[in-house]
């Protein structure tokens, strides 16, 4: 009986160990994004609406990720493990107002957001244009400080991810639009 129980516990232990290692790999290895297959969502987003942003990048922090639209349903934020989430009910990045972008703090996602400094550039790519933002502020706040979501009268994006002990805080970056640039679609 003890031997049977031991085998059960060892099986459970090995299974959870494998799951833990998978979660660690998922958080840290850039190749893990390919685990979900080709980045079809970006293409689908682009074809569904030319107005939706498709790419989000902060070169200073080596962040370059696809953008996925998201919503809040019954106080629960939808999220993705394949890129950053753009809150669809906030204004499009580059429009007047406060655009909300968020993502997990994995190293392959927004884990390096905490290295972003005021003055750094943020690029939001649309199918036919590029919006360039300059970081104005960064701060560490509590999850209940929802004032960062408040509407604004400027063209602003607010980007945040988890930080702190046991992910108990949020690191927030706010940036305002520099100047609109248009990419050549002929290329």
């Amino acid at each position: 009986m003890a031997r049977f129980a031991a085998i059960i516990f060892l099986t459970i232990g090995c299974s959870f160990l494998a799951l833990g290692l998978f979660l660690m790999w998922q958080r840290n290895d850039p190749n893990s994004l390919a685990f979900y297959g080709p980045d079809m969502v970006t293409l689908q987003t682009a074809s569904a609406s030319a107005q939706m942003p498709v790419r989000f990048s902060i070169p200073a922090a080596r962040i370059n990720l696809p953008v996925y639209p998201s919503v809040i349903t019954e106080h629960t934020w939808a999220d993705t493990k394949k890129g950053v989430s753009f809150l669809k009910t906030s204004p499009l990045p580059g429009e007047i107002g406060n655009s909300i972008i968020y993502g997990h703090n994995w190293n392959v996602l927004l884990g390096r957001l905490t290295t972003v400094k005021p003055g750094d550039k943020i690029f939001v790519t649309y199918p036919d244009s590029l919006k360039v933002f300059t970081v104005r502020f960064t701060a560490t706040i509590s999850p209940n400080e929802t004032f960062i979501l408040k509407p604004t009268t400027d063209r602003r994006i607010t980007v945040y991810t988890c930080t702190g002990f046991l992910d108990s805080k949020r690191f927030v970056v706010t940036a305002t639009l520099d100047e609109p640039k248009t990419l050549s679609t002929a290329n």
Partner: protein
Amino acid sequence: MKRSIYYGLIGVVASAFVAVPSVFASVSVPNFPSCLSPQGSAIASYNDGDHGIVGSDATYTGSDAVYQASDITLIQCFCSTSGQGIQTNWWRASSLTNDEIKELESEGWTYVPSGTPWGLDDGFYLTQNSSYSCLAPTPTPGGGDGGGGGGGGSSSGGSSSSSNSSSSNTVVAGAETSEGQILGLASTGDIVKVYGVFAIAFFSLITGFALLKRHESR
């Protein structure tokens, strides 16, 4: 007899649960907006100059702006020339008792006897500082000292506001406009889950090996 002791213990435990929260919930602190996304009307704005921060005797050089968020709350957003920001929450707490003020002081609030030296209305305030990072302001030629104090009151010095200022557009849009009240930010970290998985793995393996050893020793 035993029953009375039992009920007595339950009563003591229950009163502890009732009494403890009531002590800590005696003072309700108002919500303050953030310098990351200031709300309210700007009552003072200086692009550069020397400024004071309550609770510190030092002089701070950089941009400074004060926003009236409500009748009793203001925020002062200072951004130094090196990009270090200090937000000061100003709470006109005239309705508080001395005990409540002492309790708040123990929680990190600073008592300011009068707002007048800071360019605010007379009356006492409670203030609290927090730090953030900001884009260092560019000094304007001939900008002068934008006004010594941190507060603004009715002052009108300075030219334009700092980098967090808004344009004159009237369209206001943000998450709250369509979401109603959002109770909290997204949970964008799952390190607790990872630790939990490893903890279960660890304890399962330890238990498994212990049972295996026990079985073999028989």
